[in-house]
């Protein structure tokens, strides 16, 4: 029996622990040049959101920058990013946090917590920013210097459970907010009083908003889904006059289409969006274009941006939503000039 003991001990040692935990070493990151950050939302409940940076001049793309620069993960469902005064504010929706990072080194400068489900951050001035939220009927007001929530704007006629405020833009002293999930309104906030002073009904589920060179708002609705109590209709593009806060024009698309990615280019004179392929339309057009500038490539595009520097079009392909996505770079004429790999589900772009 004793002869078996060494064998048993050897076996025990062999079969026992050998797992090594790999903590992230903090390394120097340089997001240099006039490049673009790409927020990759990852998969819900995986905690695998990442941040990439692409420098168009060198053609180099760095991935997982937040992890390398800080030795920790970005979080669960990276949602959006805004840069102000050399600081990038990354909203991580399901982690309930907004990270403030140096826009070059990507080192953390601070973080804002105490949020329900943050979606987008909009800076009113140096001392005040608004944060839109899902599952909440309030827009949070934060102090960027102390990284703290200093107040809330209560949205009228919105319950907590179906609360949803999304993208925001500012014209003058007013901030305009899309009320998205199960909503159909654009809210206007007076930035002096931090109160909602106007509400405009549009189509079903307005999600994305942009302001053009003439100070007009453009709103893209996704149309909801079949069976939704909030309705189901064809998605549409709305042009809204901010002076009178009314819908000037509505461009109806095909029902059932997945539309997203509304963005402004050419100094606010050209609209871009995703509807299968990539579409664009001058802001003074009176009808939707007949054909996309970039046709679909047998995939579903997940994100879109247009370079403010050279007008190149960047289109995100999430592929199967479970692998690192790819960004295709096109010229303004729609010619493919290259591609680069980023993280899982690239969803938001933020130019330096």
């Amino acid at each position, binding site marked *: *029996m004793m002869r078996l003991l060494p064998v048993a001990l050897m076996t*025990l040692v062999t079969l026992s622990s050998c*797992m090594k*935990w790999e903590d992230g070493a903090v390394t120097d990151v340089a997001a240099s040049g006039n490049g673009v950050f790409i927020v990759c939302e990852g998969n819900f409940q995986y905690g695998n959101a990442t941040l990439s940076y692409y420098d168009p001049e060198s053609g180099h793309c760095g991935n997982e920058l937040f992890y390398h620069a800080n030795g920790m993960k970005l979080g669960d469902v990276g949602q959006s990013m805004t840069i102000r005064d050399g600081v990038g504010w990354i909203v991580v929706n399901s982690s309930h946090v907004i990270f403030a990072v140096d826009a070059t080194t990507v080192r953390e400068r601070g973080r804002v917590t105490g*949020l329900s489900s943050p979606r987008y951050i909009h800076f009113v001035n140096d001392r005040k920013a608004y944060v839109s939220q899902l599952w909440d009927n309030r827009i949070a007001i934060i102090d960027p210097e102390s990284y703290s929530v200093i107040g809330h704007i209560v949205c009228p006629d919105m319950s907590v459970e179906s609360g949803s405020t999304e993208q925001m833009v500012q014209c003058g002293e007013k901030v305009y907010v899309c009320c998205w999930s199960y909503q159909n309104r654009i809210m206007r906030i007076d930035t002096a009083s931090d109160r909602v002073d106007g509400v405009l009904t549009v189509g079903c589920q307005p999600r994305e908003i942009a302001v053009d060179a003439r100070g007009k708002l453009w709103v893209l609705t996704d149309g909801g889904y079949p069976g939704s109590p909030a309705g189901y209709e064809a998605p549409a593009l709305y042009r809204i006059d901010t002076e009178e806060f009314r819908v000037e024009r509505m461009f109806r698309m095909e029902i059932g289409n997945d539309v997203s990615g509304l963005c402004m280019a050419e100094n606010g004179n050209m609209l871009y969006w995703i509807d299968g392929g990539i579409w664009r339309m001058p802001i003074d057009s009176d009808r939707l274009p007949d054909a996309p500038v970039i046709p679909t490539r047998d995939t579903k595009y997940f994100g879109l941006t247009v370079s403010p520097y050279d007008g190149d079009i960047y289109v995100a392909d999430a592929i199967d939503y479970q692998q*690192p996505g790819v960004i295709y770079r096109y010229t303004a004429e729609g010619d493919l000039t290259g591609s680069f790999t980023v993280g899982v589900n690239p969803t938001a772009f933020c130019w330096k």
Partner: protein
Amino acid sequence: MRLFIYVLMTICSLAAVAADPGVILRNVDYTGRRPMKDIGVNRTVFDSLSLRDNVAMSMADVLAYNSSVYVKEHGRASLSTVAFRGTSPSHTQVTWNGMRINSPMLGMTDFSTIPAYFVDNASLLHGTSSVQSAGGGLGGLISLSTAPFAHDGIAAQYIQGIGSFNTFDEFARVTYGNDHWAVSTRVLYSSSDNDFKYRNHDRKENIYDDDHNIIGQYYPEERNRSGAFKDLHVMQELYYDSRRGDRIGLSAWYNSDNRELPLLTVEYGGEMGFENRQRDRVFRSVMSWDHVRSGWKTSLKAGYMNSWTAYDYRREVAEGQMVSMTRSRSRVQTLFGEVSADWIPARRWFVTATLTGHQQLVRSMDRSIAMGSGAAAVIGYDCGRMELSGAVSVKWQPTDRIGLSVVCREELAGYDWSPVIPALFADARICRWGALTAKASVSRNYRAPSLNDMYFMPGGNPSLNHERGMTYDIGLYGAWHRDGVWAFSADMSWFDSYIDDWIQWLPTTKGFYSPQNVKRVHAYGIEFKANGQWAVSSDIKLYMQGSYSWTPSVNAGRHMSAADVSIGKQLPYVPRHSASVTGRITWRRWALEYKWLHYSRRYTMSSNDVAVSGSLVPYFMNNIAIERSFGWPFADLSLKGTIRNLFDEEYLSVLSRPMPGINIQLLVSVTPKF
């Protein structure tokens, strides 16, 4: 008739041997005819030692440490799913006393809600073999059942477990039996704070100066927040045996679970007050009648299941003001009926026919939306689906050495008939040495989409196709023994399967997920299991069992875009290698048990990138237990100490879900003698 009795006795004797590893194989006649019901079948039977090892164990633990299936767990009393052979959890069918208990909404089963002490018989039917019992088991089938307590008069048992993290388990069972009747009542109550400590390697805490500048960072040592649970299980059984070939059984099982759902490691909202909780109340009951006569047997079963699940996510929006953000409620009712017949028309023939029906009634309310008009609208679905499954099998043993079997199954889900599900089985005894037997099988299989797949709001896709599977199996089985000294058995099989129209939930641009038929998967590999016992001396006995599986499961579908690099890659959350070993040595009234489990690297991305969050590193889990039993004229007593995660591994089974380090449990079992 003699043949039928012989077949039954052979099954019973094998089951009895399998059920008690403390008995050294001695009198099993391996040279006799094999049970015809198992011709070509690849089955793993769990012994009573596995099922009765620890009152705190769920079936997820039993499956992880005693088989080659992959158990993906979120921690104790949290979602634990099981996948065979590189398939998904919804490809594993699970029956309890014949009634399918997969959630009709999700298609899968949470094994953390099934305590091992509430299961008397458990077995796995691997791959093609699942067609013998049900359709839709593209990976396999897990059969769980209760059985009469073999004891005359009154018997009782009480077990108390006390463990780390304020974990308490209380189990009591009272039985009464005589020649005709057997009655059993068992109760289990488990509770825990489940607030184990762990080092959070995914996030850092900042150290600030007075001007909010970060002057330092560190990985915090945290406690698992929101992991507490309180689970109650009550089971009542009643059996009647006429001793003239009629048996009636009734099993009714109620469980009430109240579980907090833990936070991710990358959660920063924990400083706010919140509640993240799931509550389940499930009642299952099955009544059966077996009527055995010369050369034939008929069985009737009827069952009812009522399952209520509530999920609440609430957050503190202001000091002391908690508001509900998600309030999901679902109720599932299942009516179950089964009629089956076994018939022996001639000496070497065996025919079975089964018709099973499940009427599913589901009401799911996921969210309550306040509309602009002030009215509230509920988002969810309310629907029913009739699921029928009929099968006929014919088994033939042309010689003592060779067995052939064919099964034809047809299924209906709602208004959709599946194509005929055929399965062919064959086995042949190669030689007398170890009764070495080769077996082979092939089957087609179809799985209907779950009700959530089709009707969930938002995202349900009513136009989904059935998932289609084709599986081939070849195996070798042998058992060797020396009377009263040692026994050893081994079973090895190779499998190869293709699954088309694999259903996967994908994000949409509208903020929700929707299922699509997207993949073709090629899963293949080897499964090996072995079991050995050795009576070293009259006092010392050794028992060891192990399993290993090698399961490449690769995406064999079309490219989803030009940039898709997932083709030919291992599916996410499917380990290529998994292995488990359990060893037990007994000396007089002492027993020492060691359990070991290994899963190889599991990718989280379809591209198999080993990025920051691209994979979970392999882990080895080691548990050890020591037990001492005492016997007195008035009672038996057993004391047991268990150390789990012996080497205090920091490991993850699921990304961003911490698992407990080393933890202990003490168990006291009292069995009074009446």
